[in-house]
């Protein structure tokens, strides 16, 4: 096995280890809740007056059996793993008998459709602005830098709240929330699609603005740092053409930005949680919000699992890609240096 292969295997083992730890945490932490979560939820149901007597008892027993709460902890963990392997995340407490995986797979497309384009657009615009500000300097830098710094220093949910208030409430340019009108049912018609777009642009704008600010600040700093590097001076001294030097600088400055992009995509579910709540957007964030309000532990656990899988996978892919892209890692792994 070559050293480079060993690097890949090493990274894979780390990924598996981190994943196992994440699974154990996801299983164990909610079980630290004092008492029994089923007690809490059944108490809530009977207090609501909806269910009572034998029906309540049946419900109680079915929950205990499903989560194996009468079993020892290690057995519960095995049941958890077994269900997970079959893609089963359990039954929602609050919206029983809905399956957790169904609730999540209904919400996830909304989150991805909102966050992925926002991240990509924000990344491209932000990096272009940052690089231009660094190279051209002058008036462009004087506008881009302070405004990006200001935008990126506003907590992102604060920006979302302010945009929602200004555009939707004060100026009446957008609906005040939701993914589509309350009077419409999801369907594959043009009018529904138009309605979705009408609800889409404001949350999209909020997310993209946040990314543009952060990326521009980072790219500007990276470019300025590279512009001042010894290899640039050396190349200038040798009489290398400006275009060639710019290409070198660009390649070097881009590397951390590409990493940032991959990690943002991996973390897109957690990145949008609170903005979705602000815009009542029907994605994972809003689902998490209602689940927390109704103590719907299986759904919360399902969502945290989805977030962890996304982030860990993105990290793993970045590590592997770096092995191929970054000559320094390649050289170190194959023992050239």
């Amino acid at each position, binding site marked *: 096995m070559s050293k480079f292969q060993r690097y890949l295997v090493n990274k894979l083992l780390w990924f598996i280890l981190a994943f196992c730890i994440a699974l154990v945490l996801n299983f164990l932490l909610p079980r630290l*809740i004092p008492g029994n979560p089923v007690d809490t939820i059944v108490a809530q149901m009977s207090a609501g007056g909806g269910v009572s007597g034998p029906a309540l008892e049946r419900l109680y027993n079915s929950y205990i059996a499903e989560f194996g709460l009468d079993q020892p902890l290690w057995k519960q963990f095995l049941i958890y793993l077994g269900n997970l392997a079959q893609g089963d995340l359990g039954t929602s407490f609050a919206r029983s008998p809905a399956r957790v995986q169904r609730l999540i797979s209904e919400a996830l497309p909304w989150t991805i459709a909102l966050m992925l384009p926002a991240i990509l657009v924000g990344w491209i615009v932000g990096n272009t602005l940052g690089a231009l500000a660094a190279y051209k300097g002058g008036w462009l830098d004087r506008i881009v830098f302070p405004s990006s710094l200001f935008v990126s220093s*506003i907590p992102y949910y604060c920006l979302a709240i302010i945009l929602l208030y200004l555009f939707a409430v004060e100026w009446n340019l957008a609906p005040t929330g939701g993914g589509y009108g309350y009077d419409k049912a999801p369907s594959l018609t043009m009018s529904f699609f138009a309605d979705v777009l009408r609800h889409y642009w404001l949350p999209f704008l909020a997310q993209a603005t946040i990314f543009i600010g952060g990326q521009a600040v980072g790219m500007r700093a990276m470019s300025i740092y590279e512009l001042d590097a010894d290899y640039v001076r050396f190349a200038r001294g040798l009489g290398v053409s400006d275009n060639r030097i710019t290409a070198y600088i660009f390649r070097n400055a881009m590397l951390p930005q590409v990493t940032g992009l991959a990690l943002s995509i991996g973390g897109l579910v957690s990145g949008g949680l609170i903005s979705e709540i602000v815009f009542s957007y029907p994605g994972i964030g809003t689902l998490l919000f209602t689940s927390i309000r109704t103590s719907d532990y299986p759904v919360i656990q399902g969502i945290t699992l989805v977030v962890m899988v996304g982030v860990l996978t993105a990290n793993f892919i970045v590590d592997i890609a770096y092995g191929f892209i970054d000559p320094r890692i390649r050289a170190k792994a194959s023992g050239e240096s």
Partner: protein
Amino acid sequence: MATIAPVSSAVSVRPGFLEGVRRSLAIATKRNRRFWFSLSLLSLLLAFSLFGPYVFDKTDPRRLVGGLYDAPSAEAWLGTDNFGRDVFTQLMFGTRTSLTIGLIAGLIAILIGVVIGTTAGYHGGRIEESLMAFTNIVITIPSIVILILLSIALTTRSVPTMGLIIGVTSWPWTARAVRAQTSSLRTREHVDIARISGAGAASLILREILPYMLSYIVMAFVLQLSSGILQEAALAMLGLGPSNAISLGIMLHWALLWESVRTGAWWAFIPPTALLTLIAFSLLLLQSSADEIFNPRLRRK
């Protein structure tokens, strides 16, 4: 290689540490207006949260002064919230809670980060490898997930508990950076001299290494403080904030839940939003301008 330290500190290369601090501050006074601006802004916010209630004689944030979202008036300067409580009073106490949680979280994160970072960086070898492997795993598992899981496991969350759980999930970046600084500092001559004089590991780290990256640790603390405050607000907006307390995040949580944005009750959500932004902005400004003071390479020519 190791002698060219990446320590971002003008102080570390000079023999007189206090002399270095004095000079840096002298430069700061003369040239860095942003540093003083952010510091004054922060002091103002701190004073507002600590002494405000007594100055304005509004010491009970839970007192009902009106109905649902009453507009600002001479009585309630920033109107009332969804429970009919005075927003201005809530704002002072909310800022206090948010700052407290950020402070606890920042101190805990710095403490863990510095202990792990210096131990790993100073000892090297196996100890370094295992500590950094642990750190890297904690970095990859997203902290918001651990925070959500921990928060739902705790049925009552006091202000110190919130600070604690945010602190124990946010130290890895500091640990990583401190390790890098330590392993470059430990090969310095003055550390060797102290070692030859018979100083132990703990005393070497405390006396010969830590003081030389103090500026760096202070800046890391400012960043941890800021991220701790924002993490708390994010958790509170999800509905997992401290129980029985008012924080800026909790104010926003209620404002969102009771549709203040859609009903146009701006006084319920603009003040906490503005305060959070001001705190985050002034801490960021403080950090970047302090960086310029301590790191002469970043200074404008």
